[in-house]
Structures are given as C-alpha cells and as structure tokens.
C-alpha cells in the first residue's frame, strides 16, 4: 500500500510540488536564520576562541562579557601566578583605539595587547607577515577583514602606516582573526605597545590568560583562582558562553530572529497543513473506498504519514541544499565570514519540520479516521 500512497501523493502534481516548496521554504528559513543567529552569537566570543594557548581567562569579578572590561591591578598577575596548578599566566590588554589610514579612512578598532615576552594569545592563522615582527617598534598585526575595511579594493600589503589614536603604527602582519561581533578591525600588538596606542590609564590590565599545569583541569583551576584571588576566572568555553548569554539577555537580537523563525514555523504548519488537508479531503471518497475494501485505519494512517514524510524529506532536502549553497556563497564574503550551517541547526530544523508534517498529517488523519466507510455508498 506504500506504493498506492506514493502514487496518490504524486498524482496531483500541483499540490505535491506546492507541499514540497512549502517545506523547502520553511526549512531554508529555519536553517538560514538559526545558523546566522548562531553565527552572530558565536562572534560575541570570537576573540576568546582565537586564543588557543591559554585555557583560562581571569578578569574583574564584575565582568560579564568580553567587551566589558574593568582594569585589573598589575599585582593581580602575580597573585594568579602564585595559585597552585598554574603553569603560566600572562597579561592581555584590550582597548578600542581609532584607526586612521593616511588616506583619512578611519574606524574604531579592537586592539589586543599580547604579553611582550611570549606573544601568548595571538591567533594562530597568519595570512601575510609573521607574529615575530610584532617585536619591532610601533608594529601591529591587523586582521584581513579590518585591512579591507580600512584599505578598500587594495591588495594586502605589509609595512603600511596608519594611526592608532594619533600614534604611528606599522602593519607587520595580516591575520585571519575570527570576525568580531561588530565589524571592527582587529589589531594585535605587544602589550606595552597597545597600552601606548590607547593611551595610558592608571591601570591597563584587562585580562590575565592562564595555562594550567599538566594534569590540572581548567575548571578546577578556575575555582582555585577565584578562591585565592577573589577575581573571576572562566574557562575559554565558559567565557564564550558568558558573552552569548549576555547578548541574548541584553539585546533585541533573539527577538528579531525569533520572530522570523516563528513566522517560518507558522507559515510551514499553516500552508503545509492546509495543502495536505485539502489534498486528503479531495481524496476522501477514495480513502472511504479503501476503508470499505478492508484497509485498516492503521494502514491508512501509515499511508498518510508516509505521504507526509515523503513530502517532508524532499522539502527538507531541497531546503537544506539551498541553505548549504547560500552559506557556501556567503562564506566567501568578508562581512558574513564564519557564518556556517551548523549540524545542530540542521538537526533542530529537521525535528521542527518533522513536527510540522506530523501536525499537518494529523489534521488530515483525523478526518479520514472519523470517515464512515458506508459514506462511499452515497453518490
């Protein structure tokens, strides 16, 4: 009878294609919007994930996310280093100087000051130049997207000069730093240099990066650091999630994306449900005949569910394919770099689409189940 269900479904080509299009549209919207949302949220912790040398971030106890920094005292670094289980701890500075090119193009930038001696905390991917050149005076490494923002339509070139808060700086490297939440250029410099670029304050230490000793768990060490120093210590993963949670709580981003996702779900359920319902109603006499002939309700239910699953699977595949193509194209775009179709979103969308088609088919199934087979004798 699966064959009969398949033929019944594909027999009415307009409705069949309409159902597939609806599900594909719904899938595309859900996967697209949830992935972009996840990508944006991931960007809130980009600078944290770029640091692969250290596993723990230490900060002021009131710090909630990466962009909210309260300066630590220089002595805090030594206190952290004194905690048992710490292999090494280095300082990290974060400031937002205005970067200005000689052509007059300018933008606020994210300037990260790395430990002078070790340069710990630098992203590993370098497109042009080398991290070692950061040891040169007034040198900075800029990310590729930031370079293209400040030097639009110009080839990547080292040794170009720019100003950071009126301080001369030379580009000695171009990195592939992850995209930040706001599309600012990401600069890396030595700690002492970055402090100069931004302008001296009484204290400058934004974060302390910590590497646990071998055999010491990062989570365990964070507790130890907090207990010993009174500072806030988070693992890289915890700190990234802190940023995500902060933006979820304090911005309208989830609401905006939530509305689009809700619309996609409602449109999917209503249109797919209605089309499927009409499709079933138009075949009601035939379903009645099948019931009279001796096809059980359970078999008819399976036929309708099979039809719904076929439509759902095809629509989901097409929608996912379109979404994959979308991200494959936009991945090349600097503004949308790092936005990818996550498997979690595909899985979640798959579950949502399954719910959509089950709801759509349930409405139809109910109508068929209550159908009296004797109705087929009425002309």
């Amino acid at each position, binding site marked *: 009878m699966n064959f009969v269900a398949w033929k019944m479904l594909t027999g009415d080509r307009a409705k069949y294609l309409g159902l597939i299009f609806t599900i594909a549209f719904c899938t595309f919207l859900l996967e697209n919007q949830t992935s972009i949302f996840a990508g944006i949220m991931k960007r809130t912790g980009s600078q944290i994930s770029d640091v692969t040398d250290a596993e723990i971030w230490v900060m002021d106890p009131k710090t909630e996310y990466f962009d909210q920094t309260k300066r630590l005292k220089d002595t805090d670094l030594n206190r952290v280093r004194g905690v048992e289980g710490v292999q090494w701890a280095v300082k990290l500075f974060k400031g937002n100087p205005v970067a200005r090119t000689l052509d007059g193009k300018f933008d606020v930038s994210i300037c990260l000051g790395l430990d002078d001696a070790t340069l710990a905390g630098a992203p590993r991917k370098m497109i042009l130049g080398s991290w070692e050149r950061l040891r040169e005076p007034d040198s900075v490494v800029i990310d590729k997207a930031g370079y293209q923002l400040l030097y639009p339509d110009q080839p990547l070139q080292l040794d170009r000069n720019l100003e950071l808060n009126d301080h001369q700086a030379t580009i000695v490297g171009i990195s592939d730093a992850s995209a930040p939440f706001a599309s600012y250029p990401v600069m890396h410099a030595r700690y002492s240099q970055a402090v100069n670029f931004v302008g001296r304050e009484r204290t400058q230490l934004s974060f302390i990066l910590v590497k646990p000793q071998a055999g010491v768990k990062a989570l365990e060490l964070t507790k130890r650091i907090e207990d010993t120093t009174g500072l806030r210590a988070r693992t890289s993963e915890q700190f990234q999630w802190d940023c995500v949670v902060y933006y979820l709580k304090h911005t309208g981003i989830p609401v905006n994306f939530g509305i689009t996702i809700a619309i996609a779900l409602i449109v999917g359920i209503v249109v797919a449900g209605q089309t499927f319902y009409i499709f079933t109603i138009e075949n009601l006499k035939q379903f009645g005949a099948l019931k*009279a002939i*001796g096809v059980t309700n359970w078999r008819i239910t399976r036929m309708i569910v099979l039809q719904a699953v076929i439509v759902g699977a095809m629509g989901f595949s097409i929608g996912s394919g379109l979404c994959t193509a979308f991200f494959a194209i936009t991945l090349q775009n600097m503004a949308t770099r790092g936005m990818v179709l996550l498997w979690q979103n595909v899985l979640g969308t798959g579950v949502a689409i399954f719910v959509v088609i089950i709801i759509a088919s349930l409405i139809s199934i109910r109508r068929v189940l209550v159908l009296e087979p004797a109705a087929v004798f009425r002309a």
Partner: protein
Amino acid sequence: MNSELAVQCRGVEKAFGNGGGKVLALRGVDLDVRYGEMTLLVGPSGCGKTTLLSVIAGLLNSTAGEVTVLGARIEQLPGRQQILFRRKNLGFVFQQYNLLPALTAAENGAVPLLAAGISRRKAIGEAKRLLSTLGMGDRVDALPKQLSGGEQQRVALTRALIHQPRLLVCDEPTAALDADTGQSVMELLAAEAVRPERAVIVVTHDNRIFGFADTMARMDDGRVISVESEPNAGSEHVFMPHHGVIQEVRV
C-alpha cells in the same frame, strides 16, 4: 444452484440519531441471500436499500436483529476482525466507481491484493489478467480520467473480483451509465461474478437491469415487502413507479 445461505438477516433494524431526531432506516428486515445467485434489492429512493447493503457489508452495525454473513455474525466481530473479514470475503462495486485517480486501471484493480500484502508485481499482473478477461486488455495502463464510465465500472469490477470474494455487493452499478453501457456491465457482472461459491447483491432502482435477477427483494419504508425467486422465469418484466412503491406488471 447452491441453496446454502450466504446472507441471512432476521429482524434487522437500523436507527440513525437519538431522541426526537431518531430515524429508523431499517424496520425489522428479514432477507436470505443464496450462493450462486444474483439478488437485486429494489425499491424507491430512501427505502433503506443502501443502509441494508451497508449493514450486510459490515460498514454499518445494525441497531437490532441478527445479520449472518458467510456464516459469521458480522456485527459481533471486533472492529479489526470485521475489517479483515471484509477484506478477505467481500467485493464492492460503487455507483461512482471510487477509483483512485492517480492509479492506472491495473493498479486500481490490484488494490485489494495490495491491501492483503500481495507483492505489487504479482497483484498488478493478476489485475491485468482479469482486466483482459473483462475486455480491458488494451486499457490497463490508462488513468481513470482517460476511461469512459463503462470502462471505469469494469475496472471497479476488477477491483471487486480480483481477490475472489465470496460476497459481492454492488450499489447502483449502472446508475451513472447509459442504457447500453449499463447493459454490458450487468452482462459482465452476471457472467464473471455469479459463481456457485459466491453471492452477489445488487442495490438498484434501475428497472432496465431487473432481468438479471435470480432473486429480487423489494423494499419499502425500511422493510423487505416481497421476495421473488426466479422473477423472470417465463415472463418479461416491466416495473413502473407508483406512489413511491415499485409495482410489478406482468405482460
């Protein structure tokens, strides 16, 4: 002729609705249907023919009385067993054919076998064979919309007979057909469906097909008012409506 009873109805009643809105569609029907015979249920519209057919076929449960079909008290069978009983033992021919529009003639004919779990290839092969027997050998791959009314009814007949049912129930099989087509469909029905091991019940008010009856049960107002065996033996029959009751005039 096999004199064993395929269907036996005793005091069958069927009511629809409750309280003041209660309508008694069948009021104590007694009826015997024999194997190897074509039994016509005739009567004016609304007299209860189709309701009785539905009760006999197990599509409706009677409110009172006894219905024995092929030796089983069909109304007493549990729901699923009733359905399986229908699938195995009953064939249906509907007034509006009720073919699945997306299926070819052969596929439509094969539906009861498919429902019984027979492989598609075998079921469709069997349907093609039967369609050829019914003169539809060259139309097996046509969709219902490509077939005439008579051809569609032959496909419906294929669907009704393919699983060798012991009871065939037909509801106004010629009502949607012109005289010649209706005649040929009934000829096919008589030739292919009536078998010693099978009973055929035809509900109709089409007096053009009364000549095919081995037994004719006349109904009125929810009751069988007369049963006549061999109604056509040695005589020609013309039935004319009169005051809502079919009267027989012997010429």
